[in-house]
């Protein structure tokens, strides 16, 4: 029954997508936004039905579906049974379709609300979204069908399946369940959907860009709309990347959070390009320049999301030759090729639209600093792309399987990151058109002094390691530059308004923030990125690591902590057995906490998932992992992660900036109308 419902949902979504393309193209031709409401509703209804059917099958333990039989188990607890709905390939494409449908719904709503007479870009963009939706519903109906009925069951899964929902079903009594790593932490249920929202959200700016190109409508109209859409996607993507790093840190028990793994790189590359677009779009909106470049960025960001999906979902990373093992690999690659080739053909044939960009007056200006920022961000993305694809090229040419190690990324990316931080500090102090170098230097003097002071303080109380000091100086510079800009402007306008009588500075600051919320939201995101940089500087250079064998009653001193092994413990929960050790943590003779690093055993799995126990303090984390636990005692791995909370805080602040900008803008017309 679930198979029938699910397939009905997929086909409804597919039909709605085709319908949307037809009505969208008609609307774009005649400049009307009517007639697209029903196809948009149809897509959303179909996508929701498919997702609900899959989730219902999981909740109802319907093992007659191949997807359920191979990815679910009766014992899988909430919310991980729900998360299983997108944990494996086929389910993830169903979620992809649903999120795309939701974005299409919001895009339609925004197009209708614009109420622009003769709007062609809006309907055109909806038609492009329809084309992308045809692809994703199309693969659900064919190569990534999640509703295949199991026709040959084994004890713990399904070995043969049929796409026909009325095929004679054979259900195994139980399934293997999702991978234990995926049900070990609540973040695993949250961070993939966040990343998806970011990835798929980048389809909307792409749709506006392609629509503008196809309809030969240059200018800034498409850009205004796609910048906001990019900001939505960017906010989700930022949150998703940070939560993903956090999950890796909390679960994978190696003490790190980022390994330049292709899966991680796949999420970082679109983020970098989208960040570049958020800045370069402003240059075109304000000054009319960089038109061609903006098209390149939206096409690039979307292409990178498809490339990322191809890399992570096709098995190509394991080996170049393995991607043809599943049909999804060649299909995604073909779609990627179509997107890139089609977009750039469109771009090339309409280059006259974008050729006459006005020249910039001066490089020492806001637009000049955005140019520098774009150069740095795209080089950054290029480096990550090269490092990710290089092993594939080597294997294709020589047959040797190689990996590009983290040292390559660090060596290339660290200088770029420092240059970016400098640009982030200086840029906001420049003015449009042409900045006066003397005034620029004057307004940056205080931030530079504060940054150097922070660097000196770091040397005095923490460390002399160059990278750490440099990260503190650069990060503090960014934050101090933003804060001093705000204070300067508030003080100046307070002076201008007061004419003698004192005006409260706090009120003036609030007025400044309200006057230009999206600018200050951007500054908040800058501060978040700066905190991340400082955090990375601390954790990458000052982390300590050690291992020790202990028996109950033993004590060990590590990084200023007194650790005492009290006793082992064993707990049986509904879906797992937990075996661990209770460790008492004391600082200066005072017990601060009790940590319980453990191994979780899921189902019949004999290999436990080692789960770290973490004590967070202002200076950093104490991170304990059980390597081994048996009658003889424990082998305990101890790590410190100095200042790692700066990463999580900075990431959430950066995403918060995006959220502020989005919500503040909606209010803007109201105040403007007063």
């Amino acid at each position, binding site marked *: 029954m679930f198979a029938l419902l699910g397939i009905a949902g997929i086909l409804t979504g597919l039909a709605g997508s085709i319908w949307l393309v037809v009505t969208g193209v008609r609307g774009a031709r005649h400049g009307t936004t009517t007639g697209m409401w029903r196809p948009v509703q149809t897509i959303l209804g179909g996508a929701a039905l498919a997702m609900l059917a899959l989730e219902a099958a999981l909740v109802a333990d319907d093992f007659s579906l191949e997807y359920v039989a191979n990815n679910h188990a009766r014992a899988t607890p909430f919310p991980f049974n729900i998360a299983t709905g997108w944990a494996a390939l086929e389910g993830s494409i169903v979620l992809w379709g649903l999120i795309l449908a939701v974005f299409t719904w919001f895009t339609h709503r925004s197009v209708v609300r614009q109420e622009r007479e003769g709007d062609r870009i809006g309907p055109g963009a909806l038609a492009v979204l329809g084309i992308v939706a045809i692809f994703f519903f199309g693969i659900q109906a064919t190569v990534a069908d999640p509703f295949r009925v199991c026709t040959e069951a084994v004890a713990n899964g399904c070995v043969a399946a049929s796409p026909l929902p009325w095929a004679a079903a054979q259900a195994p009594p139980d399934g293997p369940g999702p991978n234990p790593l*995926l049900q070990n932490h609540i973040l695993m249920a949250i961070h993939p959907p966040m990343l998806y929202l970011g990835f798929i959200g980048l389809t909307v700016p792409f749709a506006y860009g392609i629509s503008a190109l196809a309809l030969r409508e240059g200018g800034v109209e498409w850009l205004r709309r796609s910048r906001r859409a990019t900001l939505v996607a960017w906010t989700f993507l930022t949150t998703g990347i940070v939560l993903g790093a956090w999950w890796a840190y909390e679960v994978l028990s190696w003490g790190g959070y980022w390994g330049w793994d292709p899966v991680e790189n796949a999420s970082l590359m679109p983020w970098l390009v989208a960040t570049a677009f958020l800045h370069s779009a402003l240059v075109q909106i304000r000054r009319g320049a960089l038109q061609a470049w903006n098209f390149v960025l939206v096409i690039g960001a979307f292409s990178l999301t498809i490339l990322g999906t191809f890399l992570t979902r096709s098995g190509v990373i394991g080996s170049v030759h393995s991607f043809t093992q599943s049909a999804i690999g060649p299909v995604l690659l073909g779609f990627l090729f179509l997107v890139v080739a089609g977009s750039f053909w469109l771009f090339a044939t309409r280059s006259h639209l974008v050729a006459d960009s006005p020249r910039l007056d001066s490089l020492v200006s806001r637009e000049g600093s955005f140019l520098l920022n774009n150069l740095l961000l795209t080089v950054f993305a290029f480096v990550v792309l090269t490092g990710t694809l290089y092993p594939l090229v080597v294997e294709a040419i020589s047959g040797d399987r190689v990996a590009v190690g983290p040292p390559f990324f660090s060596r290339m990316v660290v200088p770029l990151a420092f240059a970016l931080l400098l640009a982030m500090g200086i840029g906001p102090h420049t003015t449009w058109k042409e900045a006066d170098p003397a005034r620029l230097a004057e307004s940056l003097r205080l931030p530079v002094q504060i940054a150097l002071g922070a660097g000196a303080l770091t040397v005095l109380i923490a460390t002399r390691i160059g990278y750490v000091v440099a990260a503190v100086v650069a990060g503090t510079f960014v934050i101090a530059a933003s804060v001093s800009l705000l204070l300067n402007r508030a003080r100046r306008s307070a002076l201008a308004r007061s004419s003698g009588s004192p005006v409260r500075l706090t009120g003036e600051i609030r007025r400044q923030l309200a006057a230009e919320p999206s600018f200050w939201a951007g500054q908040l995101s800058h501060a978040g990125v700066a905190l991340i940089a400082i955090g990375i500087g601390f954790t990458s250079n000052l982390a300590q690591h050690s291992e020790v064998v202990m028996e109950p009653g033993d004590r060990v001193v590590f990084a200023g902590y007194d650790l005492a092994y009290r006793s082992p413990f064993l707990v049986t929960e509904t879906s797992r057995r937990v075996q661990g050790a209770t460790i008492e943590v004391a600082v200066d003779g005072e017990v601060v906490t009790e940590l319980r690093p453990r191994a979780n055993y899921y189902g019949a799995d004999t290999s436990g998932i080692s789960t770290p126990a973490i004590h967070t303090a202002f200076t950093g984390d104490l991170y304990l992992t059980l390597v081994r636990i048996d009658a003889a005692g424990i082998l305990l791995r101890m790590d410190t992660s100095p200042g790692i909370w700066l990463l999580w805080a900075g990431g959430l602040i950066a995403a918060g900036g995006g959220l502020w900008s989005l919500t503040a803008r909606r209010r803007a017309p109201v105040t403007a109308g007063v």
Partner: protein
Amino acid sequence: MPPRKLVWPALALTIAAVLVLVATNIGDSLTYYLTPQEAVDRRAEFPDGERFRLGGLVLAGSFSESGGVRVFEVTDGAETIRVELTGTTPPLFAEDVGVVVEGAWNGSFFEADTALIRHDETYQAPTTTQAS
């Protein structure tokens, strides 16, 4: 500020510099990835201390641990190599499961300091049945 004429040459030069930097650096950070069979066949190319990644299945019944060093055998069915691992074993590490260890030859065995579970995007560790 530089005259506008110089902007494009400067940009071209920057891009060229980036390409050169990438090209020269990426070669240094390459780690070869060999199966036990290849590691034995190409022993001459990888003398003691020359790092590479070795990937295969952890041979059932071969795991032991003492004094923080984990010893096990990695096999691809054709060749089997003894591995001495000083680093921690990753989550999901078990016998009969695919593993990648990074290190170098040391005489007749492989001295590793890092181990990763080989997993795809579903984080499912490959097992003997899947590998065959």
